């Protein structure tokens, strides 16, 4: 193949396109924060997962320590089984509690982990039942109204 003077221009063009792709992947996308290492899997049982979705973050003290792999329904216990993958570098005690929290007022829901006090750590395949479900607005309103009703009837009963 004879070298030609268009070689250098075509080479520059291809390098420019490749550089643009690399820029997009690293600066605009999340390639640097992707974690390809496998973690260990834990299953958490919730009464109500609210708006939790797969791929949602799992945070402890606000720092991302894992993600939600999949969500299923357990028709033996009638609870939701949330399969969580935790990063290999973090070990949590066996009695840690899992809560479903919302980031900001209108943000996505994520799973928050609060460490317990047990000496033994969570192992792969464990099931966690020490959980707190997502806040459901209707239940909250119902509780508020019930509280209001009993508050107004208690002084009447006391008279």
């Amino acid at each position, binding site marked *: 193949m004879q070298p*030609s003077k268009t070689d250098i221009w075509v080479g520059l*063009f*291809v390098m420019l*396109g490749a550089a643009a*792709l690399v820029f*997009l*992947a690293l600066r605009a996308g999340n390639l640097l924060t992707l974690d390809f290492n496998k973690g260990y899997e834990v299953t958490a049982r919730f009464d109500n997962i609210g708006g939790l979705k797969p791929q949602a973050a799992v945070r402890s003290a606000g720092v991302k320590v894992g993600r939600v792999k999949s969500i299923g329904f357990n028709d033996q216990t009638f609870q939701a089984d949330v399969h969580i993958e935790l990063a290999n570098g973090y070990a949590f005690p066996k009695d840690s509690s899992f809560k479903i929290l919302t980031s900001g007022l209108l943000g996505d829901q994520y799973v928050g982990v609060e460490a317990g006090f047990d000496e033994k750590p969570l192992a792969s395949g464990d099931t966690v039942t020490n959980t707190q479900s997502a806040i459901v607005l209707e239940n909250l309103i119902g509780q508020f109204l019930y509280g209001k009703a009993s508050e107004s009837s208690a002084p009447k009963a006391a008279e």
Partner: protein
Amino acid sequence: MRWWHPADIGFALRSKAAAVGQATRLLLRLVAGLGYVLKRPGLLRDQIHFLGNYSLAIIGVSGLFVGFVLGLQGYYILQRYGSAEAVGMMVALTLLRELGPVVTALLFAGRAGTALTAEIGLMKAGEQLSAMEMMAVNPIERILAPRFWAGLIAMPLLAAVFSAVGIMGGWIVGVLMLGIDGGAFWGQMQSGVDVFQDLANGVIKSIVFGITVTFVALLQGFVAKPTPEGVSRATTRTVVMASLSVLALDFMLTAMMFSI
């Protein structure tokens, strides 16, 4: 065509079906010409220069202005809800998922597609293609296949340049002109843009659009009437068909890729 004569309708349908068949055969021969093209990379290199380098100016400038407009409009709308810092994520997602591949394909059809059609049409009108066949050189392998593969290679690169320049344009307008916090601009963008979901899908779209636009351009040139009027008609048909195909394919690809 006299639509009240069944013979004319039959003839029209048969010739349309024959045209589709001819187009499919041409596509298959273009794809099969990869072996020939790899043995003569000089042809490929010249065509990438012709299609890619010369389109870089219009793609770059258009990307910059599209980024400017996205930054402005995004800021005006988002700051009504107090989310002005999400402009970065909005500009990046809009460009990577949709505008990058589609607008690049439309501009590519207008600039490179018409050049391809006119070149092939003029070669056909000047009987150069028949002359090549006389010399036992396959014109499809020698002339058309390098252009096809060059278009397939050049389009994703051009779309990436468009998106990158557009994001820089959005940064210039949002951070430098409108005063959004630069850290929030990039941080929100990085948390909102997924490499596999958004960037990879955009690249796949641009490859599909590259195949579509280049194939339509080559086909229209190949079947053009070998007269100056026929060539100019073919050029117009290239732009119209390629643009409509790109938009229709964009809808189908979006529905397949981004369904919840």
